[in-house]
């Protein structure tokens, strides 16, 4: 097939690709900055910024989750080299999203924030998603992969499935009435997770649970 020609770009091309992707991933943030500067974010710019950052955190989670299926469909194994950056962008937008809540919504009123986390399920689950995302971001450098060992690292990073589910539920629970957007995200996430279930061959699954045993002992 024709597109297989693009299968293995050289090192130089990968670097260029990464630079281009890095810049592209900043567009949502630049758009917000531009809008804030020109006052085009509507009557409630803080709400707009908070929501937009949250949406992009979720978008990047789903984009990160689509790398593996895309690789399998196309045979473009080099896509894996972009995955770390996409995952880190999910973390980046999630951090900004959380910051707008802590700063612009609560103005660092820690007592109120603690109350929110304990009392409001959509905040509890959003915070959980962020808390789970943190170790993934911290163990993203190559050195950490080596230190943890590939298998353990991979097992830890499967947390992204839980994180994505928490993020979609967080969105679903905060909507006042019209859940059509969270529903679309749910469908996409189900597809991305479902496809993995289909692909997981029983042998490998056995190997994974076999590996888990010594750790539990």
């Amino acid at each position, binding site marked *: 097939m024709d597109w297989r020609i693009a299968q293995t770009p050289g090192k130089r091309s990968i670097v260029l690709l990464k630079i281009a992707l890095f810049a592209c991933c900043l567009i949502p943030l630049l758009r917000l900055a531009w809008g804030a500067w020109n006052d085009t974010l*509507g*009557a*409630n710019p*803080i*709400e707009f910024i908070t929501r937009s950052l949250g949406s992009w955190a979720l978008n990047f989670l789903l984009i990160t989750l689509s790398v593996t299926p895309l690789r399998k469909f196309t045979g473009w194994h080099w896509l894996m080299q972009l995955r770390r950056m996409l995952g880190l962008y999910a973390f980046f937008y999630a951090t900004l999203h959380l910051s707008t809540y802590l700063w*612009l*919504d609560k*103005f660092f009123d820690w007592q*109120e924030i603690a*109350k*929110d986390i304990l009392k*409001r*399920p*959509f905040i509890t689950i959003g915070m959980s998603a962020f808390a789970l995302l943190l170790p993934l971001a911290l163990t993203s450098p190559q050195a950490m992969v080596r230190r943890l060992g590939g298998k353990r690292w991979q097992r830890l990073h499967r947390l992204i499935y839980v994180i994505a589910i928490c993020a979609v539920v967080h969105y679903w*629970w*905060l909507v*006042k*009435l*019209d859940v059509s957007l969270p529903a679309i995200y749910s469908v996409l996430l189900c597809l991305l997770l479902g496809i993995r279930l289909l692909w997981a061959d029983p042998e490998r699954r056995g190997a994974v649970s076999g590996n888990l045993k010594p750790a539990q002992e």
Partner: protein
Amino acid sequence: MLPTFSRRPTDIAPSEITPRDVFERRRDFLGAAAGVALGTALSPLSAAFASEKPLAGIKSPLSTPEKLTHLKDVTSYNNFYEFGTDKADPALHAHTLKTRPWTLSIEGLVKQPKTFAIDDIFKLAPLEERIYRLRCVEGWSMVIPWLGLPLATLLKSVEPLGSAKYVEFISAADPKTMPGVNRSVIDWPYLEGLRLDEAMHPLTLLSLGLYGEVLPNQNGAPLRLVVPWKYGFKSGKSLVKIRLVEKQPQTAWMKANPREYGFYSNVNPEVEHPRWSQATERRIGEFLKRKTLPFNGYADQVAQLYAGMDLKINF
């Protein structure tokens, strides 16, 4: 042919154009008009204007002296699900709403059930300008110069019977002109309700305009309710029917989510929405949040309506 996005000059009748100096002096004009039954004097004109129809009202002592929210924000950030659930939707889609001809019927437990043509409502009483705070249940607020008349004026004209205890407000739900009605996010038509004494309270306004103009479509044209001590959703928009009843009516939000939205829905910083706190609010246009006031700052006028009631149960 070039597409034209704005109206060509020839489309605008000379009678539609308010001379700029008059427009800019309209505040003084409003002040000077105090005591004059201006609503009556202007109403034949108001029907003739196609858009941005000027409307005047007598200044009211019930107005707040707070800084007004920009007109642009008042008319572009709306919850009006009949035109979509995004707050930008109504400004984008409400142009399809036809506000003439329009009738409002008042029925139920009244001596004289009546159907009013919209222009007759303009003539019912001199219009007043009421600058009210508006607090949305979502945690934001505005200050809006409404134009209208006390709802009590309208209700008295149909003579409520002694058995009438509640008032039900029914909004228009026309799938042809209101695209949001085609989606079943809410059990259409939008229903709201008040206790009769709340409906008769002098603060309760039947609004026909804002900012010196006839109501823009996205704000609930041609007539809507404004109940400033309750969360915004209690103030039904584009009303077509008012019914006086004996039993507490069901409202659209109570049907949608009874755990989160009660019949009273008085602004109360101490009674939180199950999913968020109501202790603070962001005034549109401001950076820091404000503390939300009991009854949205109208406690002096309305708290006695709820004497002896547990407002946590009657939320």
